[in-house]
């Protein structure tokens, strides 16, 4: 960093595809600019006032020509749309087998936590050539997590999980910018991604003071905050069991079905009355205001972990 560049470093698998389309668009633009500018220049010189050019039988329109310059750009547009859409579909679909990192945006910093429990502020250490998936949420206004070198960006919205992934291809340090205006210190909500060799990453992960994993932290919260008092086989309250729940369809009291994804789990913790499971009473208190965004993410990580176990017999 610090040198003069015309293009940002190309440091992720996504970057290559985005750049390819960018160059294609640039070439097509240059083509149209050249054709139009040359035509204007040519006509302006040839047909300048007083020039001896032939001006007989001027045309004031031709539907054939109009159809031509309507159809060709339309087809080119559809082709470009397809290229962009295919890559977008890939960018927006979170792949499996990824290193999970939880990201909380707040005015004006990024708080990140790795699955192993390691925490960072405004920095993200990741290994090269491995897919990294971020789960992002904001605890105040909308932010946006932007890594130009990876060509990815995702708005970080309060009350709603979004996700973003990338697979870095080059080691090095790259900018993180908040790209959605978020208030006074918006321009200082910046950081860096450090892409490391896998061994160096392992060493970094184990350095510093040892922390409990996110799942472990979630389990502690599950018992410490009283969740397990109801959501347990031997509870005296009639509450749904959460083992085996994750990503399964849940029948609701109003007759609809919902998939138990991260957002559903989050809403059930904070606004339990919003979606009542069929066969249960609306007795759960809201934990809104009692848990931080990090704690909610830890709880969900724990619910995911037990959610993949076999459901116990009640």
């Amino acid at each position, binding site marked *: 960093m610090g040198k003069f560049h015309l293009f940002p470093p190309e440091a992720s698998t996504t970057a290559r595809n985005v750049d390819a389309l960018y160059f294609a668009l640039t070439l097509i633009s240059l083509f149209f600019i050249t054709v139009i500018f040359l035509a*204007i220049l040519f006509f302006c010189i040839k047909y300048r006032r007083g020039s001896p050019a032939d001006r007989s039988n001027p045309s004031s329109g031709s539907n054939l020509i109009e159809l031509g310059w309507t159809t060709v750009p339309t087809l080119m*547009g559809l082709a470009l749309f397809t290229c962009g859409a295919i890559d977008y579909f890939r960018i927006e679909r979170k792949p499996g087998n990824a290193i999970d990192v939880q990201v909380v945006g707040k005015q004006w910093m990024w708080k990140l936590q790795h699955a192993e429990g390691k925490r960072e502020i405004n920095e993200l250490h990741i290994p090269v050539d491995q897919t990294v998936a971020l789960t992002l949420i904001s605890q105040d206004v909308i932010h946006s997590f932007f890594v*130009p070198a990876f060509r990815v960006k*995702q708005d970080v919205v309060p*009350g709603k999980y979004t996700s973003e992934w990338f697979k870095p291809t080059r080691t090095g340090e790259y900018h993180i910018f908040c790209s959605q205006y978020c208030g006074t210190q918006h321009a200082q909500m910046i950081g860096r991604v450090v892409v490391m060799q896998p061994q160096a990453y392992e060493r970094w992960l184990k350095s510093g003071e040892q922390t409990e994993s996110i799942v472990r932290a979630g389990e502690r919260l599950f018992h410490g905050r009283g969740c397990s008092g109801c959501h347990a086989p031997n509870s005296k309250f009639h509450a749904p069991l959460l083992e085996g729940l994750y990503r399964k369809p849940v029948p609701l009291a109003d007759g609809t079905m919902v998939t138990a994804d991260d957002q559903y789990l989050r809403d059930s913790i904070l606004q339990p009355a919003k979606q009542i499971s069929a066969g249960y009473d609306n007795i759960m208190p809201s934990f809104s205001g009692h848990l931080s965004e990090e704690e909610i993410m830890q709880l969900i990580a724990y619910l995911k972990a037990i959610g993949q176990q076999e459901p116990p017999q009640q």
Partner: protein
Amino acid sequence: MNTLDAKVATEIDIKTEGQFARDNYLSEHTVGSWLLTTDHKRIGILYLFTILVFFTIASVAAAMMRIELLHPAGGLMTSETYNKLFTIHGTLMVWFFLIPSIPTVLGNFVLPLMIGARDVAFPKLNLMSWYIFVFGGLLATWSLIRGGVDTGWTFYTPYSTTYANSHVISMAAGIFVAGFSTIITGMNFIVTTHKMRATGLTWFRLPLFVWSLYATSLIMVLATPVLATTLALISVERLWGVGIFDPKLGGDPILFQHMFWFYSHPAVYIMILPGMGVVSEVIACFSRKRIFGYAWIACSSMAIAILGFLVWGHHMFVSGQSVYAGMIFSVLSFLVAVPSGVKVFNWTATLHKGSIHFTTPMLYALGFIGLFVIGGLTGLFLAALSVDVHVHDTYFVIAHFHYIMVGGMVTAFMGGLHYWWPKITGRLYPELWGKLAALATFLGFNLTFFPLFILGYLGQPRRYHVYPPEFQIFHVLSTAGASILGVGYVMPLIYFIWSAKRGRVAGPNPWHATGLEWQTASPPPKHNFIETPIVTDKPYGYSAEKDVDLDLASI
């Protein structure tokens, strides 16, 4: 200007002196005759002065930002000040300059003249719209005097409703009020175009500027109420904590973006369509040719107006909206580019076999095409989903929309102002100075905004007043360009004032143009025409073969 021209000029001077219409719409000089006027021409001039005030404030804000951005660490101002400056710049430029610019100034002035009418359909409402606009502008100014707003012109929630500690409501109220002036103007133009056309002036004999104003008016009437609703909802949430957009109150922040862009994307076409209309007039006039593909240009304005309502989600590709919604909005955004392309091709084809006069308005029109082509093509980058993920909210977007809004709309506004200036004032401006100003704005504009495309692709986010040092070179180039651009805008201000008093008398039709507005005296009489004109032919009945010399040497 050579000596021969000067000699001819003097002769013409004597000949045309008597052609300055003594009894015209400007004859009365009392303050009351201005403040109580229902004459569309005077109202156009009232609007011109009003938007000039807001253009000046917003430009000064831009200049201060560009100076601050010379150094990566900023240093001249606090973050808070910078954030307020870009909010002033955006809100005033969009709602108090760009949206009213061509419609309320040039549209008000020439629409009735172009269709052979004595005035717009509702002259009193027309005056009322100006008062409403001024009142809205005062509310916005009040918000600035009290300390300003720091939300950006986009007012994204929940920042604007819950977190911002600035004067959001008075600014929102100002824009809300000004919106009614836009709606009234739009409605007035629609009715005027339907009901007030001269005998024989069928729809497909209308000048293309009228078509573009008609398309613009439809958007004004249909989209502006959505903005009013959105701003009202912001105020309700901010004042009384009613949960609409803030998730902490049970609202949905993305809902705001849908509502805001449902208005604000069509608003982009409110800003550019009238400019395209001006360019069609100017290109035909100074090519001395019937415009190529008249019906296609007219219908492309309508296509843009309709399709423009269906692309708002392309501002939200990284907001977390559905992938499939993103795809629909992307494909529609590519399609809306087609009618704009059709216009550019037709303008270019109009030059073929023309007899091209490089007058000041023509230079602005040609500059418009160049800048609009770049602005339009870079719009395709933003419509392409995967590329947009990278460039969204960066300087690439800033560069793109300034190419459309400033390179396009402001250039067209300047071109139109020069084109109709002799009609408005009855006098010509100094042609050489006009050409120099057109050249300065074109060069200054490109130097200001082209580097920002590169900067955006490098990843510089917008609304940053401190930035990594490797981006500095592009900011320095941009600031240098902005100074040239500033000169290009100040020059016309000076020679227009001079020419309004001392410019050479223009006569009714200095360009030998064919539109009805040129068939009456300059400045026009109070009720536009002594005899109501009758139209018997298609517009733009120019002939390149039988061209005449325009004598424009005026100093």
